[in-house]
């Protein structure tokens, strides 16, 4: 953002963070309103400064738009359509893989995520993608589940291996 185009400043997408920030600060202040001063003074301080900064930001943007030194656009958030699709699908895949962990377990969901990711993003062949994703997921299983014993929900794969080998 702020890439000067004919000396102009782009604005639009950069309102998201201030809006989120202001919303969160408001919620935070409400959540502490009944507490003793020692529990809320620092939160109030940060929230007030944040509001001030956001206020200055809003003022600057409005003045800039009025004077014509700022112009509105949203594309800087995703650059172009192709990249937006790529990023969106990568993020969507990630969300999906996290959502299935409680049923599929770590190994299967990781495999599924990597497999789909390699196929879709790198256009790997099915065989290569399955092989790479499979070996990475297996490596993750050995390292994180067997050795480091992280407490991921067990899926069919973990239960099968544990039933077969007693590990």
């Amino acid at each position: 953002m702020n890439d000067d185009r004919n000396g102009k400043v782009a604005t639009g997408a950069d309102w998201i963070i201030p809006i989120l920030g202001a919303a969160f600060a408001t919620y935070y202040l409400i959540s502490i309103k009944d507490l003793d001063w020692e529990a809320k003074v620092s939160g109030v301080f940060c929230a007030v400064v944040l509001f001030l900064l956001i206020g200055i930001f809003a003022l600057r943007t409005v003045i800039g738009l009025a004077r014509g030194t700022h112009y509105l656009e949203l594309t800087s958030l995703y650059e172009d359509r192709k990249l937006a699709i790529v990023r969106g699908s990568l993020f969507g895949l990630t969300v999906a893989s996290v959502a299935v962990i409680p049923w599929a377990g770590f190994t299967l969901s990781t495999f599924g995520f990597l497999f789909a990711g390699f196929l879709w993003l790198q256009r790997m062949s099915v065989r290569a993608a399955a092989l790479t994703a499979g070996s990475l997921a297996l490596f993750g299983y050995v390292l994180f589940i067997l050795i480091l014993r992280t407490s991921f929900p067990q899926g069919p794969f973990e239960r099968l291996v544990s039933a077969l080998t007693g590990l």
Partner: protein
Amino acid sequence: MSIMLNRRHVLLAGAGAVFAPFASAVQAAGYPDKPLQVLIPTGEGGGVDQAARAFNRIWSKYLGANFEYSYFPGASGQVGYEVFVSKREADGYNILFGNIGPEMIMYATQKVKYKYPQDFVYLGSMDVDDSVIWVGSGSKFKTIQDMVEEGKKREITLSTSRLPHPSTIGALALAEATGMKVRMIPYGGGGPARSAAITGEVDGCATFLSSSLGLGDQARFLTVFNETNRAPELTNNAPPVNQALGTKIPQMSGQRAIAIHAKTVEAYPDRVKKLSETFKQVFADPDYKAVAEKAGTPWEFIQYGDAASCQESAKEFVELADRYRPLLSATK
């Protein structure tokens, strides 16, 4: 805050013993056939962690199972209890290792989502650790009287690991009884609290005795919140508070204890029976003395308490906390 004291719950944990013979034998046969999951509502390496590990080393012999640990510190132990009650299965494989005194005070002073004793009960306690006040070796206070005298002129600052703590209530009760002024400074952990008193940031430290024993000459113990000082040679013979000042402050102790879900008591009486019986056996084991002392608890403090006595002491702490509530809680 008051607990609906319900005789059923008082006796529930112990009752496992009575009803167990009628429970199905099949259920008991396999238990425990996998490691028990120990949830600790304080930090790794803390006092409870050390004591639990020492205890379980012997307990596993009688129980026939190993233990796996997880730690959920935060909000003075509230996080651990919330997780235990809402996210751990009530199957007798999940137990919580906690400290009745501080954690019942926390229960009484903070907004918690669980209910005692409807959601969990203490099955047994393993030691009684007295609250103390001590000062750093460089302090000008030689006796508790010195501190009380000075405290009438200015506010005395005492470090503590967290406000909901028996030693905090002890110090506040002491201030109330003698007219001294005291300000409790929570450090969010036993280590930083002790360090603050040794390095002179505060006048002294209010804490449990056993965790301060390793400090050696750096700490001078002024008083013990119990009727007798049970480890006089380790605490430069500090006098019991009521004896030194003629006050009537109740005993302020922590009892490390195990808790289980109340539902487990109802659904698996045989498992609960096995747990409580083997829990008790540990205290008679000569090896336990060795490991308990290695973990830093003097043998004088090791003391078995059954479910009923845990319940009794939990109730007392809730009542005590209610009296000092405004000083311990941020919600007025």
